[in-house]
């Protein structure tokens, strides 16, 4: 089963880009073929969210100081770069969750995805122009990967 999981906070500007893309994928795909989920909050929940999936595409915003709108592709087989890692105790980065799932034997066969460098994470803001353009690009790319119509 193919899963697409958008990660983010709907009320924090560009942090919502993963959710926005997930919403578009949901509207353009057959739920019998593609399961689309939105994850708001604790990323540790990913380990449960993708239970039953063979192939998972994750979409999340990135805040690494790069050029806003930059799209990073990642494959969990290769491990995630520092862009997807942050240190803390009460929230786990995407990179940490993937490594924890791998250690627990709960990583789906394929986990890949997109990170989109955000510009503005202001509470209540919408997507910035750069990130909205990147969302178009990633949505099209993702739908092509899923081999379904736009």
């Amino acid at each position, binding site marked *: 089963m193919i899963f697409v999981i958008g990660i983010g906070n709907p009320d924090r500007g560009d942090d919502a880009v993963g959710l926005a893309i997930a919403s578009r994928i949901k509207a353009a795909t057959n739920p019998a073929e593609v399961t689309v989920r939105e994850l708001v909050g604790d990323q540790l929940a990913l380990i449960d969210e993708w239970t039953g999936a063979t192939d998972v595409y994750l979409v999340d915003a990135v805040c690494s100081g790069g050029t806003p709108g930059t799209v990073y592709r990642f494959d969990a087989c290769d491990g995630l770069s520092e862009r997807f890692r942050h240190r803390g105790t009460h929230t786990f980065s995407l990179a940490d969750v993937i490594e924890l799932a791998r250690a*627990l034997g709960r990583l789906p066969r394929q986990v890949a995805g997109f990170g989109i460098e955000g510009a503005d994470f202001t509470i209540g803001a919408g997507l910035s122009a750069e990130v909205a353009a990147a969302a178009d690009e990633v949505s099209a790319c993702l739908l092509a990967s899923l081999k379904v119509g736009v």
Partner: protein
Amino acid sequence: MTHGSRISVPGLTRVEGEGGLEIVVSDGRITEARLDIYEPPRFFEALLRGRQYTEPPDITARICGICPVAYQMSACQAIENGCRATVTEDIRKLRRLLYCGEWMESHALHIYLLHAPDFLGYPSGIHLARDHPDIVARGLSIKKAGNHLMAAIGGRSVHPVNVKVGGFYRAPTARELRELVPQLEQARRDAEETVTWVAGFDFPGFDRDYEFVSLRHPDQYPITEGRIAAISGLDITPAEYDQHFTEFQVAHSTALHSVLDGRTYLTGPLARWSLNFGNLPADVMRAAAAAGLNGTVTNPFRSILVRAVELLFACDEALRLIREYRPPDPPAVAVTPPHSATGATGYGCTEAPRGLLYHRYAIAADGTVTDAKIVPPTSQNQRAIEADLRDFAEPRLGMDHEILTSECEQAVRNHDPCISCAAHFLDLRLTPAEYSQGTR
């Protein structure tokens, strides 16, 4: 520690908060141990001013992603105190049940992924999971049960949206809560195994004469209610907090330090246990006794064991509260602004997973919050953490730097500090005195 040497650990993990810690050594003595904090949640107090009295539970919940219920409960109780409102017994029980979910979530996370790796020689929870996946999976399963309990009552597991001044927007049905029972029963069994597992850890020999402070309740292990008590005899209401506890600024931390009548004190599991273990249910006490806990615990490294017992208690208490559950009807009582033309001040204290959380609000007659004070447990524990580091490290300065640094990091994690809920990192520097100049 040799003269002129330096231990530096950039990016100490598994300690919450943005800041650093520095130990200054001179002639074989520690002259200073500082916990530097850069990003405390103090701005919340300022942004609360001018808001309506109904808003603090939702606003202050945003201070922390792991203990939002603590902020919501302290805020609600303080505002209800100021507005002279009394909630029903059924609402109080539902609040306690919601809080149990938060304790489960927080304690399971800290025990399994943040603190246990120290005792077992792993650099992180991920490394621990590679060798012991079943053990870490057990911890995650308990955390998940806590998440589900919070979601069932609060609407979601992080930053619940169902809490309001006076109670809840909606009370879950008895059936909705009963559906959680199998998972909570499994969590309780897992928590029992957690106590046994943690009891087998090797705890460094280190005891301190703490001034413990926590809520104390005549017949309950305190979570949501009680008087403020200290091991030295203090016994006051939350309204008397400011008469005894003083906050003040220090140069190296933007989080205010706090003292009790001029003395350093400690809140959290060790304090709760030491002041209240007699109120734990008999079966939880049996598990604690089997794990070697029989009275006051003064070794901070054993806080993980107390936390495990509290985890078992939270599961046990959640099951009890669900068995006795009657949906509060109505789910909230009406709370109106103070009748006095000059307004009123309300006080609230609850036991966050990390310790005592105090809220105070001044509310005008039109319901506007004119002043707010929030004192989180980690803010209160800063001085105790610094004292721990000083007393722990000094007799060990001759140890291998790497080992000493690792044990100092572990000593900080004993108190599960949650500095700013901003999920960054702490930087530990153990520095000879001659290097301390210019590091500020």
